């Protein structure tokens, strides 16, 4: 029988997830078991899917392009985010209930506190993503704005990406004020935007030495279609443009379909372009599955499957559509699986129908 959004069992589950995400001791295994029960009760088809694949296999990301699952018929749909075009020609949609959104907030903040802001007191956060108001359906804009609001200096932090590109006056003011006040800067944004900013500053002769404690967090590098920037290439640019040396850069992996993010957990190159491994933690776990049978692999390359215990509005695991490498220190995400290229001279139908469906 389906569980109502306001069922006490759902209340307890949300409370336990929030506590776990905030770092309180708890039983992640128990939470996962209850999420499985919730998915099976409210979306019975998933048991058939798991029977045909493997129990716990993530929902294929492409599902969110056509018929995104939502577990609570009686819940108000508080917010909808759209997937980036890298997922496919047609953008997917991911809807959050109020509770789902709150859990995502908790997870975003907890992840950033642990991975990025440890030891920093109100740094200047410079976001290289649009504001949430300018891009209301972009989950990265939402998440980075939440992080800046939670951890950043409220006066000097800024959103440095506008509709026409970099907002140079605001950017210069933030950076130069931080330098003058010796306040650490946290640069956050998409990989390409971060690389482009560095290149522009270098070309314009506007390189700076950011104060001690400054760092950079980029997202989306492996997913870029415009040509991914290798980790070491980005680091060299950050060093040249901002004086950000070793140990000051992290890459994060996030998806619209997930509430939590995975951050680099060890500074060892694991992927072919220097991608660093991400270890996950109690609330979010990255796995690599063998393409032949979807069996989990402890070591080696395969399909990325992320289980995120902070997701309650839909099945909690996603088969992300990425290729990844598992190693001793975690999982490095190395890029999107190319599903659009035709094999041989058979046509990709998407290419001639503009991504639209042809209905019988």
């Amino acid at each position, binding site marked *: 029988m389906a569980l109502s959004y306001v069922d006490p069992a759902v209340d307890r589950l949300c409370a336990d997830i929030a506590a776990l995400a905030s770092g309180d001791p708890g039983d992640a295994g128990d939470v996962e078991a209850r999420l499985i029960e919730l998915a099976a009760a409210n979306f019975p088809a998933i048991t058939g899917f798991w029977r*045909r694949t493997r129990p716990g296999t993530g929902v294929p990301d492409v599902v969110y392009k056509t018929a995104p699952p939502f577990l609570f018929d009686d819940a108000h749909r508080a917010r909808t985010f759209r997937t980036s075009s890298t997922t496919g020609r047609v953008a997917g949609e991911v809807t959050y209930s109020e509770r789902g959104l709150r859990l995502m907030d908790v997870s975003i903040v907890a992840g950033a506190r642990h991975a990025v802001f440890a030891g920093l007191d109100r740094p200047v956060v410079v976001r290289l993503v649009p504001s949430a108001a300018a891009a209301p359906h972009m989950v990265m804009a939402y998440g980075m704005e939440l992080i800046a609001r939670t951890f950043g200096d409220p006066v000097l932090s800024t959103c440095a990406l506008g509709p026409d590109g970099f907002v140079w006056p605001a950017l210069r003011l933030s950076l130069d004020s931080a330098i003058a006040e010796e306040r650490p800067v946290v640069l956050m944004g998409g990989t390409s935007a971060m690389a482009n900013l560095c290149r522009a500053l270098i070309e314009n002769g506007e390189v700076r030495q950011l104060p001690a404690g400054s760092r950079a967090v980029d997202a989306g590098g492996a997913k870029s279609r415009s040509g991914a920037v290798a980790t070491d290439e980005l680091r060299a640019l950050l060093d040249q443009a901002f004086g950000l040396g070793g140990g000051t850069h992290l890459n994060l992996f996030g998806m619209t379909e997930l509430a939590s993010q995975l951050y680099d957990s060890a500074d060892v190159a694991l992927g072919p372009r220097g991608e660093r491994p991400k270890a996950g933690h109690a609330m979010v776990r990255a796995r690599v599955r063998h393409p032949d049978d979807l069996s989990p692999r402890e070591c080696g390359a395969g399909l990325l499957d992320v289980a995120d215990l902070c997701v309650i509005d839909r099945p909690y695991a996603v088969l992300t559509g990425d290729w990844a490498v598992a190693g001793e220190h975690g999982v490095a995400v190395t890029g999107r699986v190319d599903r659009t290229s035709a094999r041989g*001279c*058979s*046509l990709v139908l998407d*290419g001639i129908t503009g991504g639209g469906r042809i209905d019988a």
Partner: protein
Amino acid sequence: MPDPSAVTWFPSWVDRAHLRSFDLFAPDRPDLAHRGERPEPARWPAVAEGLRAARSRLAGLPVAAIIDVIDRVCTQWTDREFPHRLAARRRIVAATGFSPEAVDRSLDVELANYRRATLYATLRRELGDPAVLDRFRPDPELAGRTRAHGPEITGVILTGNVPGLPALPIIRALLVKSAVIAKVASGEPAFAAAFVASLAEVAPALADAVVVTYWRRDDHGSLDAVLGVADAVIAYGGAEACRAIRARLRPEHRYVEHPHTFSAGVLTQRYLAERGLAGTAAAVARDVATFNQHACIAPQAYLVEEGEHSPRRFAEVLAAAMAADAEGHPLGELSDRAAAAAALQRTADVWRAATDESSWSTWTSAGFDWTVVLAPDLPESGGGNRVIRVVPVRTAGAAVDLLRPVGARLQNIGLGATGAQFRELAERFAAAGASRICEPGRMAEPSMMWRHDGMPCVAGLVRWCDIEMHQESRASEEDDDGPDRPDSARVSEASRHRRSDRLHAARR
């Protein structure tokens, strides 16, 4: 003796000092290195000079002699124990991951096509009289005479998706007495050079007019240099690759393009009743499995008219037929990239089947040997590797409507219909853009006579000269001297010439 591991072929008249060695790593098989040679871009004009000289000797041969040679070489290749074929098969398996059986079926289908009778029929169909390639021939409609000349040099951008297919454009060019510069594909670079090496053993005069090499897709210097010396271009490839070539053509280039296309089959209730589900399914399985579904003529979907023999039941029977076919003819080994794409597609289809049982079902092998998907619509991506959708349609006519948006990119239709219904559907598919209609089970076997992509591919290479309104154009005795006879003696003579008159064009 050519290097048996090389993916390139240069005639002996080419000065090797002007060639540079390279290693070729296919994107899907980075552990497999092929070796080859190519000239620097600046050296192509000298190579072209040698090719033109070789071509002038080729042009002196009667087309009958050329056909005779091609027939002999391709007859050898249809023998599964032919040493060149055995070596090529081994290398094609390594490069493509196709099973040896899949490569053999592909080579059987491709090379059985280029035999004397078919070659003559192709020329007659496209040019009327094959001897127009030798001399002026009477043209009654014109009340005069007509003559066809092929290009001096044809540049060929090959595809690697179908083992054996590279022979086709090379043969088309040689039939019109054109020299050839062929660029192999990184995905399957081995066959073309092996084929030309075997040609050299039978008729050095023909192989002397062919260069097979490779350059990277982003090596615009080599591409521009070859386009600069070629008079005609035959290109296989996706939209991006074809666009890049088209953008570099000169107005005077003759250009024959084979872009990506979409093929499908249609089964009416009457056809299923007459032929039976099992027999039809076995035929469809052959359509799907041959070339591992990588060819433009391979169906990506079969549209089945709803009725007593339900599409779902047909899909079940087809799954059994796919399994049976794969037993003796397995898919092979997918690269990581292909396996990842296949796994994601299969998982997505399983999800749809789990969430919409009335419209979707999947039947799969344990590995990736085959997949049958019952689905309400066409696949968005033609992934190949034996993944076939069975799409129910209310009426057979609805199948035409479903495929109409594919338009001019619609290639091959396996039309399982009979009588008046067949004739009506054939008319409608032709109007919708299809370029070939055949029986289910014969989709993978187009004859060389078929107008590939809806155009005459041999005639597209030639330039005609007509004599009309001239008193000298009346028929003479030599007009009766038909071309349909073997003439290997003249090939041998040309080969002797070649040895005594060896060119060193690259040195000049």
